[in-house]
């Protein structure tokens, strides 16, 4: 038999066999015995190949994705950095807004002109209790003007230049403020102490002041308007000579936290303001 005829015969037999199996096999849902043997032989190989394929596929996809992830990661990191920066700026703005709102509230409560000033520096050495604000004589600020924040008095202007002023804090022994104890209305002088805080001096022995009482300005010293919060009494004792009572006063203001202050430019019948400076108030 020629070779070509043999090949054609084989192909026809195979196709015929296939057609025979196709049309003669029963339509059963269950696999037959031959199928089961074939399946059980093939299954382990299939599983291995499938697992290897799956792993290779995952590794490849992982690698490909990692290339993207790295780029995405860098973008996200930059985004986080930018958002953090923005967040810090917004938090600062929010804090500033809160402080300025308080000052504005205070400003509208006062019946005299006042000016918001920013704290720009502190005492160079720390032996004295002073700070510097960014408003000076050009803005209408003059020595002895009271400086306050929402919590209470800060001090008074000690020295001014054209665009900067030095504020003597109420905790400095060089500053004395005429005050009253809010509850008992006893009068005394508050001055700073090197021992931290302030001391309320020259209070009558008959006074019933006690720790926890609020101390406010009396308005009688010609510098501070009356009723501004100074601090709270911590301890009461008889002074060394025994003629008066004195009290340790904890200031109402945390001086390390101050960022903006309100300078009271004048009072009714009080300070003379230079003409032409009204617009700056």
């Amino acid at each position: 038999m020629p070779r070509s005829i043999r090949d054609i015969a084989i192909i026809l037999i195979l196709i015929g066999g296939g057609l025979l199996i196709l049309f003669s096999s029963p339509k059963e849902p269950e696999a037959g015995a031959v199928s089961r043997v074939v399946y059980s032989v093939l299954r382990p190989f299939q599983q291995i190949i499938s697992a290897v394929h799956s792993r290779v596929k995952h590794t490849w996809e992982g690698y490909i994705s990692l290339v993207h992830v790295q780029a995405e990661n860098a973008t996200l990191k930059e985004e986080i950095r930018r958002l953090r920066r923005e967040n810090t700026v917004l938090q600062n703005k929010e804090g500033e807004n809160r402080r300025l709102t308080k000052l504005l509230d205070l400003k509208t409560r006062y019946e005299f002109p006042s000016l918001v000033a920013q704290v720009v520096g502190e005492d160079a050495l720390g032996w004295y209790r002073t700070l510097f604000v960014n408003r000076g004589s050009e803005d209408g600020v003059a020595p002895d003007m009271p400086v306050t924040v929402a919590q209470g008095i800060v001090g008074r202007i000690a020295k001014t230049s054209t665009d900067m002023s030095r504020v003597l804090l109420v905790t400095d022994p060089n500053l004395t403020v005429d005050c009253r104890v809010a509850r008992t209305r006893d009068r005394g002088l508050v001055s700073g102490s090197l021992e931290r805080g302030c001391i309320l001096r020259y209070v009558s022995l008959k006074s019933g002041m006690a720790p926890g009482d609020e101390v406010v300005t009396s308005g009688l010293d010609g510098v501070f308007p009356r009723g501004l919060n100074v601090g709270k009494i911590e301890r009461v004792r008889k002074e060394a000579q025994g003629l008066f009572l004195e009290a340790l006063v904890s200031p109402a203001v945390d001086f390390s936290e101050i960022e903006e202050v309100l300078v009271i430019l004048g009072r009714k019948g009080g300070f003379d303001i230079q003409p032409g400076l009204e617009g700056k108030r």
Partner: protein
Amino acid sequence: MTDGIFMLFTGIAALVLQTTSLAFLAPIDYKPDMILILVAWATLRMPFGVAAGFAFTAGILIDLLSGAPTGLFALLYCLIFLTCGYCHATLHLEGRVAQAVIIFGLTLASGGIVLLMRWISGPVGFGWKAAQWFFFKSVFTGLTSMLVFPVLERLRSGYTRLVGA
């Protein structure tokens, strides 16, 4: 002249640091007196005229930037300059610890003079807490000098290489 310029720039830098960012590194009450450290260093390393001029000028500037009466620190730093110069001449202050001890003493003395001046003008409420404050502020200044002196020497050697002696 070059020494004078060097002291001018370091003085300005120290003043800015003293009035602003130093408070971030140390509590305001305990912040070290950088100018006193500079005066002491100038006394040990600079020509007499430059150091004396620096002590006086820095003192005047400190008077303006603190609550001190004008002239107090100009005088104080000149006294510190003389005292430090005397101590250096007699005790040969070359070791860092010896220099720090002298600076501690000088800070304590300057604090004492400030206290005295305040005492004269009115009651200051001096007690145990204030004494602690004086002591620890002086300790911090002394310790800071141990860090600042090597930095100043490096800066000066760099500056000298740059502009010539």
